[in-house]
């Protein structure tokens, strides 16, 4: 489970940034008092236009960025007080996630397994499970730099899931990927749900949200505009389409 309460993230603005944004404020609030809960076994989608604060929120949940104030509990662990313990519970994947191009999948997976304190037997079992599932045997010893985008994405998925995280964070996971590669991610997200994991993903593609999510939150300019179940969202729609409703909520606020 993920519980986010009154989350605030401020970034200091340089004089150049103040000028560019036409403001005299010395700080910008990327996230401003956001609260929501993601339940285990459900898929939670964080929606918002570009620059809404989605990535910053997910980075705070993943402990990459420290919140200015507020609290985040991941799988019962306070992310701010015990970031290292929280990280052991989290799998993190973005559309732009890079891999070590001079290493092979075998080496990359071993590296992340070691960093997650996995024992050899468990690691090999999980690794082979994903090799079978994603049909990776043919390129497991090939250098990542010589692989196609689709192959790389499969390695990224396995890297994210190798330590069997209870919470999986996807930041625009299909962004920039072709349809077939994106399909692997969609399948992974659904598999995580089936396994009872907590899944949070950010997107601005409504069809993806419609297909996958059980709960959603809409944020814009760092503020939470909507939070609830997908079912409630659909039943209270004031426009004909999900995209139309998303645009209406963003524009009205």
């Amino acid at each position: 489970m993920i519980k986010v309460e009154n989350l605030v993230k401020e970034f200091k603005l340089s004089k150049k940034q103040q000028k560019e944004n036409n403001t005299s404020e010395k700080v910008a609030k990327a996230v401003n008092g956001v609260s929501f809960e993601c339940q285990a076994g459900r898929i939670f989608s964080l929606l918002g236009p570009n620059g809404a604060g989605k990535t910053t929120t997910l980075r705070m949940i993943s402990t990459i960025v420290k919140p200015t104030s507020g609290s985040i509990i991941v799988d019962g662990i306070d992310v701010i007080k015990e970031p290292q313990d929280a990280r052991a519970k989290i799998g993190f994947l973005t559309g732009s996630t890079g891999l070590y191009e001079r290493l092979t999948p075998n080496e990359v997976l071993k590296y992340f397994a070691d960093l997650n304190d996995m024992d050899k037997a468990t690691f090999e079992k999980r690794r082979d499970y994903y090799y079978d599932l994603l049909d990776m045997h043919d390129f497991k010893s090939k250098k990542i730099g010589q692989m196609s985008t689709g192959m790389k994405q499969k390695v990224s998925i396995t890297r994210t899931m190798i330590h069997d995280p209870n919470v999986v964070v996807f930041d625009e996971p299909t962004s920039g990927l072709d349809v077939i590669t994106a399909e692997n991610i969609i399948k992974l997200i659904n598999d995580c749900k089936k396994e009872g994991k907590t899944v949070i993903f950010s997107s601005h593609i409504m069809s993806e949200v419609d297909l996958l999510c059980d709960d959603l939150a809409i944020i814009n300019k760092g503020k939470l505009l909507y939070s609830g179940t997908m079912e409630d969202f659909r039943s209270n729609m004031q426009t004909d389409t999900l995209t139309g409703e998303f645009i209406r909520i963003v524009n009205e606020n």
Partner: protein
Amino acid sequence: MKKIIIIAKKEFLDLLRDKRTLVRMILIPLLVFPVIINLVTMVQSSAAEKEAAKEVNVGYVLNGQSSDMIDNLAMIPNYNFYEFSDSTVLQDEILGDSVTVGLHFASNFDNDYSAGKTPELALFYEGVNQEDLSKVKYLLTMQDSLYTDMRMKSIDKDYGFIEPFSIVNRDIGDDNELIAKYAGGMLPYFFLAFCFMGCMIPAIDMFAGEKERGTIETLLTTPVKRLQIVFGKMIVITTFGLLSASLALLGLYFSLNFMGGEDELMKTIKGMLSPGLIGTLYILLVPLAIFFAGIMIPVSVYSRSFKEAQSILTPLNILVVLPAIFGFLPGVELDYTTAFIPILNVVLACKSLIGGHPDMILIGITFFSLIILAGLSVFISVKQFGKEGNVLR
């Protein structure tokens, strides 16, 4: 500690598969001395051979005087003598390069010599032909001695009559001291420079490179402390710095023992490379390499890309060159001030060791000042890596 080693192991593997790393940090340091020494030896021997075979063309105007001296000189191999009618023609020939040095005997040369006076022998030349001039001057000095001797004999005196005493030079100083004074700073400088260059590529690749490739975020979401990440990577940077310096030393050792021959330059370098010097150099290089890593990491962490980090760090080479240049100067010694100036202190400590009179207290101060600097730079690196504004820039 386990996580630090895991990170370091992965970084070693990753870097050793990078061709750029292998060339710049392994191949170049290993080959630079053999190539330089081979070139120097080749150029030196070829220049010496050319010089030995070169013929010197000397013009002369007897001005009606005896040709005894010229006849004597003409017997020496590789010297050609050509007679000219007057000094104007002789000068024209010198300017036209058909002869390089000209001798012009004064019109009363023979009479004055016989009368015990000092007749004039004018020497014409162009300043650019210094080598030929020196050779001819040497020949004339010999003639001068011969003529003096003949004159002394004519009055039944020995040559010693006009030489009331002779000066005998006896240098009782240690050759190493002289070497240390004028060249002692050069050798350690080469290793410092390779150490710096060896640190640079890994420092850039492991921070700015990771940011550029988008792998840093993934690493930050693993249950590893940032301190452990910095330490793991720092071990690799420092090791590569020391490895580059060691390979340069190995290359030098190979060159001196198997390629250089026995000329003066090689003997001088061999004279400097004592086990004591190498040992001390390494003891001082370890904290210095950590210090190098410590100043490179914050720059690399701050930079958005490999190129940006490289463009900032490359001019920092001056940081190594400048203090080292001061260390080359004769008279600049290791003292209670210079022992605290990084790089310069290592150069001067090595200089004092080559000279054979090291002050161990000052070398100790050098070592501890480097340790403090290394610690400080590690602290700054960890702080900078901890700043999310830098890492996610």
